[in-house]
Protein backbone atom coordinates (compact mmCIF):
# COMPACT_ATOMS: atom_id res chain seq x y z
CA UNK A 1 0.00 0.00 0.00
CA UNK A 2 1.35 3.41 -1.01
CA UNK A 3 -0.50 6.46 0.27
CA UNK A 4 -0.03 9.71 -1.62
CA UNK A 5 -3.26 11.20 -0.28
CA UNK A 6 -1.68 12.77 2.77
CA UNK A 7 -3.25 16.17 2.08
CA UNK A 8 -6.57 14.61 3.02
CA UNK A 9 -5.30 12.52 5.95
CA UNK A 10 -1.74 11.54 6.72
CA UNK A 11 -1.21 7.80 6.89
CA UNK A 12 0.59 5.90 8.21
CA UNK A 13 0.94 7.72 11.49
CA UNK A 14 3.97 7.31 13.74
CA UNK A 15 3.61 4.28 16.08
CA UNK A 16 3.89 6.64 19.05
CA UNK A 17 0.56 8.16 18.02
CA UNK A 18 -1.16 4.76 18.08
CA UNK A 19 0.37 4.03 21.49
CA UNK A 20 -0.81 7.39 22.86
CA UNK A 21 -4.34 6.72 21.62
CA UNK A 22 -4.29 3.31 23.29
CA UNK A 23 -2.95 4.78 26.52
CA UNK A 24 -5.62 7.48 26.46
CA UNK A 25 -8.38 4.89 26.21
CA UNK A 26 -6.73 2.58 28.75
CA UNK A 27 -5.51 5.00 31.41
CA UNK A 28 -6.92 8.50 30.91
CA UNK A 29 -10.66 7.99 31.04
CA UNK A 30 -11.47 10.96 33.26
CA UNK A 31 -13.42 13.95 32.01
CA UNK A 32 -10.86 16.77 31.76
CA UNK A 33 -11.76 20.04 33.43
CA UNK A 34 -14.91 18.83 35.06
CA UNK A 35 -14.24 16.84 38.23
CA UNK A 36 -11.78 17.02 41.07
CA UNK A 37 -10.92 13.34 41.42
CA UNK A 38 -7.48 12.10 40.45
CA UNK A 39 -8.54 10.50 37.16
CA UNK A 40 -10.08 13.74 35.94
CA UNK A 41 -7.19 15.91 37.10
CA UNK A 42 -4.53 13.67 35.54
CA UNK A 43 -6.48 13.60 32.25
CA UNK A 44 -6.72 17.42 32.39
CA UNK A 45 -2.98 17.53 32.85
CA UNK A 46 -2.40 15.40 29.74
CA UNK A 47 -4.68 17.67 27.70
CA UNK A 48 -2.84 20.71 29.06
CA UNK A 49 0.55 19.29 28.07
CA UNK A 50 -0.60 18.86 24.46
CA UNK A 51 -2.02 22.40 24.50
CA UNK A 52 1.32 23.68 25.74
CA UNK A 53 3.26 21.69 23.15
CA UNK A 54 1.07 23.04 20.31
CA UNK A 55 1.49 26.57 21.67
CA UNK A 56 5.26 26.24 21.62
CA UNK A 57 5.23 24.92 18.03
CA UNK A 58 3.39 28.04 16.82
CA UNK A 59 4.77 30.62 19.30
CA UNK A 60 1.39 31.11 20.96
CA UNK A 61 0.20 31.49 24.54
CA UNK A 62 -0.95 28.12 25.87
CA UNK A 63 -4.42 29.39 26.80
CA UNK A 64 -4.91 30.70 23.24
CA UNK A 65 -4.79 27.19 21.80
CA UNK A 66 -8.30 25.80 21.32
CA UNK A 67 -8.98 22.17 20.48
CA UNK A 68 -11.52 21.64 17.72
CA UNK A 69 -12.86 18.67 15.77
CA UNK A 70 -10.93 19.60 12.63
CA UNK A 71 -9.84 22.60 10.56
CA UNK A 72 -13.33 23.21 9.16
CA UNK A 73 -14.75 23.65 12.66
CA UNK A 74 -11.89 25.98 13.58
CA UNK A 75 -12.48 28.09 10.46
CA UNK A 76 -16.23 28.25 11.01
CA UNK A 77 -15.67 29.38 14.60
CA UNK A 78 -13.21 32.07 13.52
CA UNK A 79 -15.17 33.27 10.47
CA UNK A 80 -18.64 33.32 12.03
CA UNK A 81 -17.28 34.58 15.33
CA UNK A 82 -15.53 37.55 13.71
CA UNK A 83 -17.99 38.89 11.15
CA UNK A 84 -20.95 41.14 11.92
CA UNK A 85 -23.71 42.46 9.70
CA UNK A 86 -22.31 45.17 7.42
CA UNK A 87 -18.76 43.79 7.48
CA UNK A 88 -16.73 43.03 4.37
CA UNK A 89 -14.15 40.27 4.10
CA UNK A 90 -11.68 39.06 1.50
CA UNK A 91 -11.00 35.46 0.55
CA UNK A 92 -8.67 34.11 -2.13
CA UNK A 93 -9.45 32.31 -5.37
CA UNK A 94 -7.74 29.18 -4.02
CA UNK A 95 -9.99 28.58 -1.01
CA UNK A 96 -11.24 25.23 0.19
CA UNK A 97 -14.99 25.01 0.83
CA UNK A 98 -14.22 25.24 4.55
CA UNK A 99 -13.60 28.95 3.91
CA UNK A 100 -15.74 29.73 0.86
CA UNK A 101 -18.91 28.05 2.14
CA UNK A 102 -19.09 29.70 5.59
CA UNK A 103 -18.28 33.06 3.97
CA UNK A 104 -20.97 32.50 1.36
CA UNK A 105 -23.42 31.53 4.12
CA UNK A 106 -22.55 34.76 5.94
CA UNK A 107 -23.16 36.74 2.74
CA UNK A 108 -26.85 35.86 3.14
CA UNK A 109 -26.75 37.54 6.53
CA UNK A 110 -25.52 40.98 5.49
CA UNK A 111 -21.82 40.34 5.03
CA UNK A 112 -20.14 41.14 1.71
CA UNK A 113 -17.01 39.50 0.37
CA UNK A 114 -14.47 39.87 -2.42
CA UNK A 115 -12.35 37.19 -4.02
CA UNK A 116 -8.66 37.92 -4.46
CA UNK A 117 -7.30 36.39 -7.65
CA UNK A 118 -4.00 34.83 -6.60
CA UNK A 119 -1.12 35.33 -9.03
CA UNK A 120 2.14 33.41 -9.27
CA UNK A 121 3.89 36.69 -8.53
CA UNK A 122 3.44 37.54 -4.83
CA UNK A 123 3.85 41.25 -5.53
CA UNK A 124 0.89 41.16 -7.91
CA UNK A 125 -1.17 39.20 -5.36
CA UNK A 126 -0.40 41.72 -2.62
CA UNK A 127 -1.18 44.68 -4.88
CA UNK A 128 -4.53 43.13 -5.73
CA UNK A 129 -5.22 42.45 -2.06
CA UNK A 130 -4.52 46.06 -1.09
CA UNK A 131 -6.88 47.25 -3.82
CA UNK A 132 -9.70 45.08 -2.43
CA UNK A 133 -9.52 46.48 1.11
CA UNK A 134 -12.48 48.72 1.96
CA UNK A 135 -13.30 50.89 4.93
CA UNK A 136 -15.53 48.14 6.34
CA UNK A 137 -13.15 45.23 5.65
CA UNK A 138 -13.19 43.29 8.88
CA UNK A 139 -11.27 40.17 7.93
CA UNK A 140 -8.91 38.61 5.42
CA UNK A 141 -9.61 34.88 5.35
CA UNK A 142 -7.14 32.88 3.31
CA UNK A 143 -5.40 29.62 2.93
CA UNK A 144 -1.68 29.56 3.64
CA UNK A 145 -1.18 26.82 1.06
CA UNK A 146 -3.67 25.63 -1.56
CA UNK A 147 -4.93 22.09 -1.09
CA UNK A 148 -5.32 21.78 -4.87
CA UNK A 149 -2.12 23.21 -6.34
CA UNK A 150 0.17 23.52 -3.33
CA UNK A 151 0.71 27.24 -4.02
CA UNK A 152 1.90 29.06 -0.91
CA UNK A 153 0.42 32.51 -0.43
CA UNK A 154 2.65 35.33 0.86
CA UNK A 155 1.25 34.87 4.37
CA UNK A 156 3.85 36.94 6.22
CA UNK A 157 3.23 39.96 3.99
CA UNK A 158 -0.54 39.44 4.32
CA UNK A 159 -0.07 39.29 8.10
CA UNK A 160 1.89 42.55 8.10
CA UNK A 161 -0.72 44.26 5.95
CA UNK A 162 -3.58 43.10 8.20
CA UNK A 163 -1.76 44.29 11.34
CA UNK A 164 -1.15 47.69 9.75
CA UNK A 165 -4.79 48.06 8.73
CA UNK A 166 -6.28 46.57 11.93
CA UNK A 167 -7.90 43.75 9.94
CA UNK A 168 -8.48 40.29 11.41
CA UNK A 169 -6.30 37.71 9.62
CA UNK A 170 -7.87 34.26 9.66
CA UNK A 171 -5.60 31.66 8.06
CA UNK A 172 -6.42 28.16 6.86
CA UNK A 173 -3.25 26.25 7.65
CA UNK A 174 -4.67 22.79 6.91
CA UNK A 175 -1.93 22.10 4.34
CA UNK A 176 0.75 24.20 5.97
CA UNK A 177 0.84 23.23 9.65
CA UNK A 178 3.74 20.89 10.33
CA UNK A 179 5.21 21.59 6.90
CA UNK A 180 5.93 25.32 6.91
CA UNK A 181 7.50 27.14 9.88
CA UNK A 182 4.34 29.02 10.86
CA UNK A 183 4.46 31.33 13.86
CA UNK A 184 1.84 33.55 15.47
CA UNK A 185 4.50 36.25 15.04
CA UNK A 186 3.78 36.05 11.29
CA UNK A 187 0.69 38.18 11.93
CA UNK A 188 -2.04 35.55 12.11
CA UNK A 189 -4.98 36.39 14.35
CA UNK A 190 -6.66 33.03 14.05
CA UNK A 191 -4.60 30.15 12.75
CA UNK A 192 -6.79 27.15 11.92
CA UNK A 193 -5.55 23.66 11.20
CA UNK A 194 -6.42 20.01 11.31
CA UNK A 195 -4.53 17.62 13.52
CA UNK A 196 -4.64 14.70 11.11
CA UNK A 197 -2.56 16.05 8.25
CA UNK A 198 0.90 17.61 8.72
CA UNK A 199 0.70 17.23 12.50
CA UNK A 200 0.41 13.42 12.22
CA UNK A 201 -2.43 13.18 14.72
CA UNK A 202 -5.66 11.19 14.57
CA UNK A 203 -8.77 12.30 12.68
CA UNK A 204 -11.25 14.26 14.77
CA UNK A 205 -8.62 16.70 15.96
CA UNK A 206 -7.96 20.29 15.01
CA UNK A 207 -6.63 23.52 16.44
CA UNK A 208 -7.78 27.11 16.49
CA UNK A 209 -4.96 29.33 17.71
CA UNK A 210 -5.66 32.93 18.62
CA UNK A 211 -3.24 35.83 18.74
CA UNK A 212 -5.34 37.21 21.60
CA UNK A 213 -5.80 40.49 19.72
CA UNK A 214 -9.43 39.89 18.76
CA UNK A 215 -12.19 38.07 20.57
CA UNK A 216 -14.75 35.86 18.89
CA UNK A 217 -18.45 35.51 19.48
CA UNK A 218 -19.37 31.88 19.92
CA UNK A 219 -21.28 29.62 17.56
CA UNK A 220 -21.56 26.84 20.16
CA UNK A 221 -22.32 27.36 23.83
CA UNK A 222 -22.51 24.92 26.72
CA UNK A 223 -20.65 23.40 29.62
CA UNK A 224 -17.04 24.51 29.91
CA UNK A 225 -16.22 23.49 33.46
CA UNK A 226 -15.85 27.19 34.33
CA UNK A 227 -18.28 29.98 35.37
CA UNK A 228 -20.95 27.29 35.71
CA UNK A 229 -23.50 29.34 37.65
CA UNK A 230 -23.75 31.98 34.93
CA UNK A 231 -26.08 31.74 31.94
CA UNK A 232 -23.61 33.76 29.91
CA UNK A 233 -21.06 31.64 28.05
CA UNK A 234 -17.58 31.56 29.65
CA UNK A 235 -15.77 34.62 28.30
CA UNK A 236 -12.13 33.54 28.16
CA UNK A 237 -10.02 31.15 26.12
CA UNK A 238 -9.71 28.29 25.67
CA UNK A 239 -12.86 27.26 27.54
CA UNK A 240 -15.03 29.86 25.75
CA UNK A 241 -14.62 27.90 22.51
CA UNK A 242 -14.48 24.39 23.98
CA UNK A 243 -18.04 23.66 25.06
CA UNK A 244 -18.63 20.02 25.85
CA UNK A 245 -16.07 17.34 26.56
CA UNK A 246 -12.99 17.59 24.36
CA UNK A 247 -11.64 14.66 22.36
CA UNK A 248 -9.16 13.47 24.98
CA UNK A 249 -8.17 10.36 23.02
CA UNK A 250 -7.54 12.30 19.82
CA UNK A 251 -5.75 15.10 21.65
CA UNK A 252 -3.33 12.69 23.29
CA UNK A 253 -2.61 11.15 19.89
CA UNK A 254 -2.14 14.63 18.44
CA UNK A 255 0.34 15.39 21.20
CA UNK A 256 2.54 12.54 19.98
CA UNK A 257 2.07 13.68 16.38
CA UNK A 258 3.34 17.13 17.32
CA UNK A 259 6.28 15.56 19.16
CA UNK A 260 7.08 13.60 16.00
CA UNK A 261 7.03 16.79 13.90
CA UNK A 262 9.25 18.57 16.42
CA UNK A 263 11.73 15.71 16.55
CA UNK A 264 12.00 15.53 12.74
CA UNK A 265 12.08 19.31 12.36
CA UNK A 266 9.64 21.22 10.17
CA UNK A 267 12.31 22.43 7.73
CA UNK A 268 13.63 18.90 7.25
CA UNK A 269 10.11 17.55 6.73
CA UNK A 270 9.41 20.22 4.11
CA UNK A 271 12.71 19.67 2.37
CA UNK A 272 12.21 15.87 2.25
CA UNK A 273 8.66 16.18 0.89
CA UNK A 274 9.87 18.69 -1.71
CA UNK A 275 12.54 16.23 -2.89
CA UNK A 276 9.84 13.60 -3.44
CA UNK A 277 7.75 16.21 -5.23
CA UNK A 278 10.61 17.26 -7.50
CA UNK A 279 11.18 13.60 -8.45
CA UNK A 280 7.48 13.26 -9.18
CA UNK A 281 7.23 16.42 -11.29
CA UNK A 282 10.37 15.54 -13.24
CA UNK A 283 8.89 12.11 -13.96
CA UNK A 284 5.54 13.58 -14.97
CA UNK A 285 7.20 15.98 -17.39
CA UNK A 286 8.60 13.04 -19.35
CA UNK A 287 5.04 11.80 -19.92
CA UNK A 288 3.67 13.91 -22.75
CA UNK A 289 -0.03 13.29 -22.08
CA UNK A 290 0.16 14.70 -18.54
CA UNK A 291 -0.73 18.28 -17.68
CA UNK A 292 0.63 19.57 -14.37
CA UNK A 293 -1.42 22.32 -12.68
CA UNK A 294 1.47 24.29 -11.28
CA UNK A 295 2.89 27.73 -11.97
CA UNK A 296 6.25 29.29 -11.30
CA UNK A 297 5.59 30.78 -7.86
CA UNK A 298 6.11 29.39 -4.39
CA UNK A 299 4.70 25.87 -4.08
CA UNK A 300 4.71 23.10 -1.47
CA UNK A 301 4.54 19.31 -1.76
CA UNK A 302 1.04 19.11 -3.23
CA UNK A 303 0.69 18.54 -6.97
CA UNK A 304 -2.44 18.47 -9.09
CA UNK A 305 -2.32 16.99 -12.56
CA UNK A 306 -4.43 15.47 -15.31
CA UNK A 307 -3.87 12.86 -18.00
CA UNK A 308 -5.26 13.81 -21.42
CA UNK A 309 -8.73 12.43 -21.99
CA UNK A 310 -8.84 10.57 -18.67
CA UNK A 311 -11.25 11.34 -15.84
CA UNK A 312 -9.33 12.05 -12.64
CA UNK A 313 -11.48 9.68 -10.57
CA UNK A 314 -11.09 6.91 -13.14
CA UNK A 315 -7.33 7.27 -12.98
CA UNK A 316 -7.47 7.32 -9.17
CA UNK A 317 -9.43 4.05 -9.26
CA UNK A 318 -6.91 2.47 -11.63
CA UNK A 319 -4.11 3.41 -9.22
CA UNK A 320 -6.11 2.25 -6.21
CA UNK A 321 -6.46 -1.18 -7.82
CA UNK A 322 -2.65 -1.28 -7.83
CA UNK A 323 -2.40 -0.28 -4.18
CA UNK A 324 -1.48 3.37 -4.85
CA UNK A 325 -3.78 5.92 -3.27
CA UNK A 326 -4.28 9.40 -4.67
CA UNK A 327 -7.35 11.58 -4.57
CA UNK A 328 -9.16 12.51 -7.76
CA UNK A 329 -11.87 15.14 -8.24
CA UNK A 330 -12.42 18.58 -6.80
CA UNK A 331 -10.78 18.25 -3.38
CA UNK A 332 -13.68 20.21 -1.80
CA UNK A 333 -12.38 23.36 -3.46
CA UNK A 334 -14.90 24.42 -6.12
CA UNK A 335 -13.71 28.03 -6.17
CA UNK A 336 -10.12 26.98 -6.87
CA UNK A 337 -11.17 24.75 -9.78
CA UNK A 338 -13.22 27.52 -11.35
CA UNK A 339 -10.19 29.80 -11.11
CA UNK A 340 -7.83 27.11 -12.44
CA UNK A 341 -10.19 26.10 -15.27
CA UNK A 342 -10.37 22.51 -14.07
CA UNK A 343 -14.03 22.46 -13.05
CA UNK A 344 -15.06 20.04 -15.81
CA UNK A 345 -12.80 17.13 -14.83
CA UNK A 346 -11.19 18.04 -11.52
CA UNK A 347 -7.63 16.88 -10.97
CA UNK A 348 -5.65 14.00 -9.54
CA UNK A 349 -3.62 15.07 -6.53
CA UNK A 350 -0.24 13.83 -5.31
CA UNK A 351 0.59 14.69 -1.71
CA UNK A 352 3.43 12.86 0.06
CA UNK A 353 4.37 12.72 3.73
CA UNK A 354 7.69 11.89 5.38
CA UNK A 355 6.51 8.28 5.47
CA UNK A 356 6.82 8.01 1.66
CA UNK A 357 10.00 7.07 -0.20
CA UNK A 358 11.58 7.89 -3.55
CA UNK A 359 10.99 4.32 -4.76
CA UNK A 360 7.27 4.74 -4.07
CA UNK A 361 7.29 7.83 -6.28
CA UNK A 362 8.87 5.80 -9.10
CA UNK A 363 6.26 3.07 -8.62
CA UNK A 364 3.55 5.70 -9.07
CA UNK A 365 5.22 7.17 -12.15
CA UNK A 366 5.51 3.72 -13.74
CA UNK A 367 1.87 2.95 -13.03
CA UNK A 368 0.83 6.26 -14.63
CA UNK A 369 2.96 5.50 -17.68
CA UNK A 370 1.35 2.07 -18.07
CA UNK A 371 -2.19 3.37 -17.93
CA UNK A 372 -4.02 2.84 -21.22
CA UNK A 373 -7.29 4.55 -22.03
CA UNK A 374 -10.04 1.92 -21.81
Amino acid at each position, binding site marked *: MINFDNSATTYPMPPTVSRAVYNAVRYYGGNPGR*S*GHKLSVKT*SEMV*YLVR*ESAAKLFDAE*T*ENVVFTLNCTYALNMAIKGSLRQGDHCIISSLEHNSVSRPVYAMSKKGISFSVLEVDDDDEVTLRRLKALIRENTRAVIMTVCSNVTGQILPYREIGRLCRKKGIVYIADAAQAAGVLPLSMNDGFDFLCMSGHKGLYGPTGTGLLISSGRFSLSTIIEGGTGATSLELEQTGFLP*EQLESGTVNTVGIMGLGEGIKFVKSRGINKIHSYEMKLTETFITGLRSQRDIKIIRGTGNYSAVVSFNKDGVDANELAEYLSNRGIYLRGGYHCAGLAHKYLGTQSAGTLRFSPSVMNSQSEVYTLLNALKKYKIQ
Partner: protein
Amino acid sequence: MTYNLIAMTSITYAQKAKRVLNAQKIYCEVQKTPSGYFSGCGYSIRVKDDISRVLSVLRINNIKYKDAVSGYVR
Protein backbone atom coordinates in the same frame (compact mmCIF):
# COMPACT_ATOMS: atom_id res chain seq x y z
CA MET B 1 -2.84 20.24 57.21
CA THR B 2 -3.28 23.94 56.47
CA TYR B 3 -2.77 25.33 52.96
CA ASN B 4 -3.14 28.50 50.95
CA LEU B 5 -5.84 28.23 48.31
CA ILE B 6 -5.87 30.21 45.07
CA ALA B 7 -9.02 30.13 42.95
CA MET B 8 -8.15 30.03 39.25
CA THR B 9 -10.30 31.23 36.36
CA SER B 10 -10.22 27.82 34.65
CA ILE B 11 -8.63 24.39 34.63
CA THR B 12 -6.24 25.62 31.90
CA TYR B 13 -4.94 28.43 34.09
CA ALA B 14 -4.77 26.03 37.06
CA GLN B 15 -2.59 23.65 35.03
CA LYS B 16 -0.49 26.53 33.75
CA ALA B 17 -0.01 27.80 37.29
CA LYS B 18 1.05 24.34 38.43
CA ARG B 19 3.64 24.08 35.63
CA VAL B 20 5.05 27.53 36.30
CA LEU B 21 5.14 27.11 40.09
CA ASN B 22 6.71 23.65 39.87
CA ALA B 23 9.44 25.13 37.67
CA GLN B 24 10.11 27.57 40.54
CA LYS B 25 10.24 24.61 42.95
CA ILE B 26 6.94 25.62 44.52
CA TYR B 27 4.95 22.44 45.05
CA CYS B 28 1.22 22.71 44.44
CA GLU B 29 -1.82 20.60 43.55
CA VAL B 30 -4.87 21.30 41.40
CA GLN B 31 -8.23 20.63 43.03
CA LYS B 32 -11.87 21.59 42.66
CA THR B 33 -12.68 24.79 44.49
CA PRO B 34 -14.42 23.82 47.75
CA SER B 35 -17.82 25.42 48.28
CA GLY B 36 -17.82 28.14 50.87
CA TYR B 37 -14.42 29.49 49.98
CA PHE B 38 -15.03 31.39 46.76
CA SER B 39 -18.12 32.23 44.73
CA GLY B 40 -18.87 30.05 41.72
CA CYS B 41 -17.25 26.74 40.90
CA GLY B 42 -14.04 25.84 39.16
CA TYR B 43 -10.52 24.87 40.05
CA SER B 44 -8.05 26.09 42.61
CA ILE B 45 -4.44 25.37 43.40
CA ARG B 46 -3.38 24.60 46.93
CA VAL B 47 0.10 25.48 48.10
CA LYS B 48 2.01 25.48 51.33
CA ASP B 49 4.51 28.15 50.29
CA ASP B 50 4.26 31.81 51.20
CA ILE B 51 1.14 33.15 49.46
CA SER B 52 2.62 36.52 48.52
CA ARG B 53 5.52 34.78 46.75
CA VAL B 54 3.15 32.42 44.93
CA LEU B 55 0.88 35.26 43.78
CA SER B 56 3.88 37.25 42.66
CA VAL B 57 5.04 34.34 40.45
CA LEU B 58 1.53 34.08 38.97
CA ARG B 59 1.36 37.80 38.24
CA ILE B 60 4.82 37.87 36.63
CA ASN B 61 3.74 35.04 34.34
CA ASN B 62 0.39 36.68 33.45
CA ILE B 63 -1.58 33.82 34.97
CA LYS B 64 -5.05 34.99 35.84
CA TYR B 65 -6.54 34.00 39.21
CA LYS B 66 -9.77 34.97 40.89
CA ASP B 67 -8.97 35.11 44.58
CA ALA B 68 -6.73 33.70 47.28
CA VAL B 69 -7.20 32.69 50.91
CA SER B 70 -4.97 31.36 53.64
CA GLY B 71 -5.90 28.82 56.27
CA TYR B 72 -7.58 26.21 54.10
CA VAL B 73 -7.64 23.04 56.17
CA ARG B 74 -7.55 19.67 54.44
